[in-house]
């Protein structure tokens, strides 16, 4: 059994939280540059230029690219022959979030109770942590700093099998249309189809961890991703909803088997600040 020291996990997670907020991934910056070549709206072009400049300032000055430094979401691929020595992996990740956010001057955006709205006593935690067991002794942690504005415009629908693929497409496009400027386009659109009620939401979230430009391994889904992206970019919403041809930077679909009565579909929107980091411990 391989052992990873608790404090090592804490420190690595703290670093990831800060890097995610200061250093926008090259996949996103490249997507901005590509969009700039095709965007027809002058306001849209200005916005894309500002997004690139903003990312540069964040990186060089070590200041968060967005004041919403996110709720932290983790997907951990944990080998069954690997364990955390000195404490639970959940505690280690949460401690890393507290350390990373507090020491990095990131924002504490978590309330303990969604109804009373009292602020959490631990800085920007608890995080949302998903663990997927794997064979072997590797441990890979994927982290996302997920903004609240785009999360709020996400949607889930238990559709009827008879709605079919056309019904699913219409629901996805409607969700992007309704989100308009609120979700901070250009968006990365994560879609989960199948599983059940909670599983499709997880699949949608998980799809957002794939880098921009990374297509589904299933040929028909890869084509559907591109078809949906093209349709989104004809909606006219554009950067920040101010009009234009860049509404989506990418579309991701994850699919799983489901019940004969079901067609669960979840759409998790990500703003243009698609902040993801991963580390193999």
């Amino acid at each position, binding site marked *: 059994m391989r052992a990873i020291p608790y404090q090592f996990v804490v420190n690595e997670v703290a670093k990831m939280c800060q890097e995610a907020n200061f250093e926008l991934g090259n996949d996103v910056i490249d997507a901005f540059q590509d969009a700039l070549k095709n965007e027809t709206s002058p306001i849209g072009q200005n916005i894309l230029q500002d997004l690139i400049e903003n990312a540069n300032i964040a990186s060089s000055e070590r200041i968060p690219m967005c004041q919403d430094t996110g709720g932290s979401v983790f997907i951990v691929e944990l080998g069954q022959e690997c364990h955390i020595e000195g404490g639970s992996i959940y505690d280690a990740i949460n401690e890393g979030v507290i350390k990373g956010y507090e020491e990095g001057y990131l924002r504490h955006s978590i309330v303990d109770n969604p109804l009373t709205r009292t602020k959490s006593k631990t800085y920007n935690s608890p995080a949302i942590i998903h663990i997927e067991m794997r064979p072997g002794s590797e441990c890979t942690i994927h982290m996302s700093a997920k903004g609240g*504005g785009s999360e709020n415009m996400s949607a889930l629908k238990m559709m009827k099998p008879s709605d079919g693929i056309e019904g699913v497409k219409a629901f996805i496009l409607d969700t992007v249309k309704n989100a308009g400027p609120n979700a901070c386009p250009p968006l990365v659109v994560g879609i989960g189809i199948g599983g059940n009620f909670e599983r499709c939401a997880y699949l949608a979230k998980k799809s957002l961890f794939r880098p921009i430009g990374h297509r589904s391994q299933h040929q028909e889904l890869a084509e559907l991703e591109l078809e949906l992206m093209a349709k989104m970019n004809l909606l006219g919403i554009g950067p920040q909803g101010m009009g234009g041809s860049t509404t989506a930077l990418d579309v991701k679909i994850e699919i799983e088997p489901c019940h004969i009565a079901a067609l669960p579909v979840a759409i998790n929107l990500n703003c243009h600040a698609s902040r993801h980091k991963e580390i193999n411990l």
Partner: protein
Amino acid sequence: MEPKKLTIPMEHQALTLLRAGERVLLSGTIYTARDAAHKRMSESIEKGEALPFSINHQFIYYVGPTPPGPGRIIGSAGPTTSGRMDKYTPSLLERGLKGMIGKGYRNQEVKDSIVKNQAVYLAAIGGTGALISRTIQSMEVIAYEDLGPEAIYKLTVKDFPATVIIDSTGEDWYEIGKTIFNG
């Protein structure tokens, strides 16, 4: 077209000349407030108490900045989604608020109140908090300090970039922009 430079608070006439879709650079004083501060201001209004600052002619910026790092005036400070403030906005416009800066849709009640009270709604670019922080020259907490990033701060800004979304005639750039580029 180069953005129009404006000082805030602004004269009534300058405000009524603003048109949906116009880019502006704002200099002067703005007050921050988001969900929790709006809730408290609304409770004050219900109780007949005074608001924590004189809202007449002022602009509110919907922002909850990150804490300033060492040597900084403010942290990252981009706009948050305005729609969450819709419930509280008409009563502030009735009391003389002239401008809101945020991002995203407003409801019909807010739009009607903007026209009735001759105000304006502007959007800053969501997710450019690092860029925007450079236009903020001072920051002073003036109310609800216990709310941390959600407290009311008085900001002095220079050339703060924004776009007019809903002008005083009720035109909405989100609707117009979408129509121009649809299909």
